[in-house]
């Protein structure tokens, strides 16, 4: 039973930690992110294609291209040495490339999904294939990047040898998709016509509003417990940096993504066309590995699991990771399970 003297002690201790923590935060210095060595190998406008330096003597002959979402920054996949999916993939002997979409500004507001998928992404794929003298590569899409990878694979199936999707929304109208419900009555045309590019802060507001008490309150109270541990504090701040490092969204691409995917659910309902290409998931006949998180509050499992019934491939594998949308990259278990799971699956399907 909580006694007044306990409350006094607890709050005193809490205040002591916070006071010490403010001093510690002032001393902590820069928050570095990105653990693995990489080189820019291709650049176009604000898009940069990186190739990670191999960590094994004889990396796989078919490279793996990681396609991240436009929302947030791709360094989540390589946050720090002991929390890096990319490092894990490199250690498994894969040759890893990553697209960094950059930070769009006002001059990019007319970039649409055709520009991103049939433009930047296809040219990155072509570049890698040319460099490796290969007709196709392995593609790994994360979150919205997974949706993009599905569209790309459906539009250019000859360029994708194997496809991996992680925490990827496919059916945007499952009953538990709160984000999907929230945008259904949104006047996206008015928003994009008004704002041009959609501010990253606005998207952050949506994401944090999914669990407001926990994500904007409790976690900062919990932070008091790690103020005196510089390693844990830095880990926390890295994550914090990533969460709020949200690029603005190119207006036309945002308009199309919200309207076609979230509001009209065209990826599974049909009728999706990007540029000159029809997007038909049945054209995805290459091997497909779909990883979803069982506790994902941003992309509910049902939204990902739906993929199986819409694709044309006969080689479909699914992996359920017990964790959340972020835990799939940074949790201790993810470091062991995800890179090995992806690499084993890929190696069994590479020449």
């Amino acid at each position, binding site marked *: 039973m909580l006694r007044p003297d306990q409350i006094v002690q607890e709050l005193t201790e809490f205040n002591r930690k916070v006071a010490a923590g403010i001093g510690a935060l002032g001393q902590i210095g820069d928050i570095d992110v990105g653990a693995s060595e990489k080189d820019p190998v291709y650049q176009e406008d604000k898009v940069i294609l990186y190739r990670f330096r191999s960590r094994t003597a004889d990396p796989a002959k078919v490279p793996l291209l990681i396609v991240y979402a436009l929302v947030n920054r791709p360094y989540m996949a390589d946050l720090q040495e002991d929390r890096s999916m990319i490092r894990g993939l490199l250690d498994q002997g894969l040759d890893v490339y990553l697209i960094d979409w950059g930070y769009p500004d006002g001059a990019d507001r007319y970039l649409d999904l055709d520009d991103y998928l049939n433009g930047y992404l296809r040219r990155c794929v072509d570049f890698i294939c040319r460099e490796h003298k290969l007709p196709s590569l392995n593609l790994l899409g994360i979150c919205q990047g997974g949706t993009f990878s599905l569209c790309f694979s459906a539009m250019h199936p000859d360029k994708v040898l194997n496809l991996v999707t992680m925490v990827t929304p496919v059916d945007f109208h499952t009953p538990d998709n709160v984000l999907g419900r929230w945008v259904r009555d949104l006047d996206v045309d008015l928003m994009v016509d008004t704002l041009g590019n959609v501010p990253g802060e606005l998207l952050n*507001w949506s994401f944090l509003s999914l669990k407001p008490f926990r994500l*904007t309150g409790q976690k900062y109270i919990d932070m008091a417990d790690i103020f005196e541990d510089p390693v844990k504090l830095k880990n926390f701040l890295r994550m914090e940096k990533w969460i709020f490092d949200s690029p603005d969204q190119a207006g036309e691409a945002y308009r199309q993504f919200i309207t076609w995917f979230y509001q009209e659910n065209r990826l599974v309902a049909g009728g999706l066309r990007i540029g000159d290409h029809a997007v038909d998931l049945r054209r995805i006949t290459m091997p497909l590995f779909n990883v979803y998180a069982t506790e994902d509050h941003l992309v509910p499992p049902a939204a990902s699991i739906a993929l199986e019934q819409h694709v044309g491939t006969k080689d479909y594998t699914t992996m359920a990771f017990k964790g959340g949308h972020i835990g799939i990259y940074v949790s201790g278990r993810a470091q062991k399970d995800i890179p090995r799971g992806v690499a084993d699956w890929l190696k069994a399907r590479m020449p």
Partner: protein
Amino acid sequence: MSDSSSSTSGPWADAWMQMQRHYWDAWSDLTKRAADSGAPKKAAPDATSWTQGLDYWSKMIAPVIPSESRAWVDKILEMNQSYARMGELLWQAVSAGPDTGQNLTSWWEGVTRAVQEMQKKASSAAPAAGNESWNGFATLWGLPLDHWSRVTSACSLFPGDMSKALHDLNAARRSDALPDFLSGWLSTPTLGYTRESQEEVQRLGQCLLDYQKAMQDYSGVLSGVVARAAELLREKATERVGQGDAFESVRECYNLWVDCGEEAYAEICASDAFTRSQAAMTNALMALKRQEQSMIDEALSALNMPTRRELDTSHRRVHQLQRRVWKLEEALNASGIAELRAEMEALRTELAAVRSTAPAPASTRRAAKAKDET
């Protein structure tokens, strides 16, 4: 701010005062730096209040925090303030009775009163999203509307917090007659040479009213979260106490509150009413901003300055040109010209290499010999 005068007369008053002394010791290092920096001295805080103490301290410390760090320090202090407020209420509740700490029933009655008090404070603060009491309770009660007002202040014409700036108007809308009066005024026919600009101002006013109304509706839907969360907290805590399992720490109580808050919020945030009101609020803000832009563009145009419309046109044209360049490059590559050029370049290099190693023609040799003889 809580009134703790009645509760400090109990047997725990000494502990409270002692705690305050510890508390001030803990801050002393940073506070000393504030004093050394020449920051203005404040009046001593009321030692009977955590939150007043924190408030005092945060004002003292502000001048020594570098501006680039102020945002996160403010964030931490804000969290601390909310947490302290919960602890303060709990402390008042459990230290009020003579047998506090001895009897589970009276203990639970005290805690229940504290929860009710929290709910009352939140309910009275909720409708006025811009006022101080709401913001002070934001981390416990005000989310996500508080967060929304911060986000939107960045994309509004009005400096600072928009909802604060419009607070008076918001309050005015609560009277039944004024909105109709304002709407009537805003739809008055316009006359004369400036009729178009009058219409623009009217439209802006109407957009403002619509946005305020949408925010109020959203706030109304959200206020249900607080009531439901408090209800859940009482239920869950009662169940625990019934099983002889009382709270052992403020953090435990806080964590349970967060769980209840999330549960209550999850029930409401997927509802049609919430979804519609949130979308309506966003749409209303966009309509308001669109109208602001249109009026600013008119003013810029009159000053012969570049407008948003012109910039958009330029960006669109640049993008169209960029697409044409991409297509031409692709066509060029597809036609094989690039390969032919590369092949020609390779032949040129090869030819140059052959020339440099081959013997010079006879005429060149003769000319070289004549030069040597001279």
